[in-house]
């Protein structure tokens, strides 16, 4: 798994894109998906949401069930017939499609070429906003301090810590502070959090602590898996401590960006 963002070439601004929202966004964080659509449409792009999309297959892939992962991935391959970019508001799922799909179909003489061609046009949302759309919009929000958490796959396979950072830095009223051990995993790891609950809890507790301690009012992330893990842990700790208001708030970066730069702030 190598960071290849530096070597990647980006297309000119397209007229149309596909949004591959991911199963987590579809079911648990639809607002983030909607905000991603709004961000893209504002640039004059027509956003297509293939109705057949379900999940990229990563849960099975990383849990050691390649056949099951391949079956799910297979069902997604034909959803993108036009040569438009596929934008994914998750570095983890984006990395799955961009880096692991070609491996999953490596030996497939028929699908292999199709999968490799698809992988080439998969972009994580922040990467797409920065490198293809050259995102630049006035910040209409109030002054605030945030911390950025980048998922491990987004960071190490897609280089998205840099693009997420660039987006936050482009907002005048937003100060970005850095939590201790910013590069460390949040402890989610998909089914790892279920298989090894104590270890996962230990890791995420440390992440919550470092985020609370860094002076940020909010943690922003481009990955829902990490956000649910971190915020869920923080909320549980609040419950246990009897705190009425949350000690840590968080938001998907798509929603954060849209809320701060849209004409009519929500």
């Amino acid at each position, binding site marked *: *798994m190598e960071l290849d963002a530096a070597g990647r070439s980006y297309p000119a601004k397209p007229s149309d894109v596909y949004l591959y929202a991911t199963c987590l966004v579809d079911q648990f964080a*639809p*607002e983030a998906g909607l905000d991603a659509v709004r961000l893209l449409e504002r640039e004059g792009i027509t956003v297509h949401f293939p109705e057949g999309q379900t999940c990229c297959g990563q849960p099975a892939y990383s849990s050691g069930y390649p056949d099951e992962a391949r079956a*799910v991935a297979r069902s997604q391959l034909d959803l993108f017939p036009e040569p438009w970019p596929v934008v994914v508001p998750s570095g983890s799922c984006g990395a799955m499609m961009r880096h692991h799909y070609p491996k999953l179909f490596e030996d497939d003489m028929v699908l292999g070429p199709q999968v490799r061609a698809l992988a080439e046009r998969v972009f994580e949302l922040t990467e797409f906003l920065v490198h293809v759309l050259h995102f630049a919009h006035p910040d209409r929000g109030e002054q605030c301090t945030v911390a950025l958490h980048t998922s*491990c796959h987004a960071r190490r396979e897609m280089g998205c810590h840099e693009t997420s950072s660039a987006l936050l830095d482009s907002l005048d009223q937003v100060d970005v502070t850095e939590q201790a051990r910013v590069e*460390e*995993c949040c402890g989610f790891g998909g089914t790892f959090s279920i298989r090894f609950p104590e270890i996962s809890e230990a890791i995420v507790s440390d992440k919550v602590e470092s985020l609370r301690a860094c002076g940020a009012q909010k943690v922003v992330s481009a990955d829902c898996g990490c956000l649910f893990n971190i915020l*869920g842990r923080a909320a549980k700790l609040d419950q246990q401590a009897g705190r009425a208001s949350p000690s840590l708030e968080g938001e998907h970066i798509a929603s954060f960006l849209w809320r701060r730069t849209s004409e009519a702030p929500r």
Partner: protein
Amino acid sequence: MSQPINFHPVESFKERGRSVVNDPAQRKNFRSAMDFLQGKRRAQFPERQELEGLRDLASAIRRYSLAQLPTLLEQLERNLTANGIQVHWAENAEDANAIALDIARRVQARKIIKGKSMVSEEVDFNHRMQEAGIEALESDMGEYIVQLAGEAPSHIIMPAIHKTKQQIAQLFSEKVPGVPYSEDVDTLIQVGRQVLRRKFAEADIGLSGVNFAVAETGSLCLVENEGNGRMCTTVPKVHIAITGIEKVVAKLEHVPPLYSVLTRSATGQAVTTYFNIITRPRQPGEKDGPEEVHLILLDNGRTQAYADAQLRATLQCIRCGACMNHCPVYARIGGHAYGTTYPGPIGAIISPHLRGLDQTYPLAFASTLCGACTEVCPVRIPITELLVRLRNEAQARPDSEDATLRGSGAGRTKLATAVWRGWSLVYSRLGLYRMTSWSMSRGRALSPIDQGAWTRSRTPLVPAPKRLRDLLRKRRK
């Protein structure tokens, strides 16, 4: 093969991890040790480009060596033999210990002084010698401490990293006659030095590991900081080196780049205090050095990794320990929890070959696949990919072509297989997915409060009232 006592059954892996996680003092120890080591490494590689260039070079050297491993091993044997070093081949731990015992009996050895060697830990050398009535004493400070405590190393470079100076002070005052309790680190080191200095003189055999074995010159390279490695390999009359078959490199000029990434990645040192190149026993007219030098080359399952195009990369490892120093899981549970000689990410990918996947597969799952190990590995072992492959192997149908390793399929359960089949079905059939996700959203009020392991530490996950696809459909109208 008899089961060495330093190996714990996999079933108790979770329990051991739990006991460390629930111990704040231990967790703090590991955390600060890991922070320290990460900082040291970072300081050694200020330039990203230089680091990546070095990793490319080191990786290429290791892959080049492995690509011609059989030829290099033969060349190594020829050249070592020509230099007067006796070469022995050991298929497994039992063989390795038998070879060492044969030598020990022939020279009527009673005492063996040891330099640091993880391969000797792998074959449980100390206990096997003890059973044969031979004392094997560790002379590396960290190894000496864990041996005194009756423990195994918890880290491949810093064996006693799990111990605080208070614990070491306590240990020395209890176990070393005439030593008062002192937490002063220099005093503690002096205690060790004084005990060990005598032992070097008394030992009949010195045992060491090998960092690099050079085929073209027939030389053994040994990297160390304490000088005990040099003592072990020069003072006793007999020197036995033991190493895995993968440690061979073709040329002497291949050593400096590997040495450089090894020390910088491991302890954040530009160079170590000692670097030994051992090429022959004492020659006539020379005043020191052993009269006999032996090399035991151990397979112990490495050929299984070698035979597999993907898993072969496991053998690129130069044992720097950077993967464990950067692993969020290792930092939380420490090395002993793994129950294998090699802990952390490298332990998870090498142990299945040494012990069988059936004995070790939970280690492959004990990772978030965050990739921190892969990012720092100086020889570019794709550790995360290998972990996924081992997960596949662990759950493969034992009689299928996907089950290729000793112990493949041992982690397969009917329940998990059924769950993932069901999952795959739901997410690959749009109709089923639509129905399932729709009912989850509609029935969100019925979402369970108790979501098992998830809600043990987190608030429950509740589906949104409307899915994104519903919101988008509504928006288009």
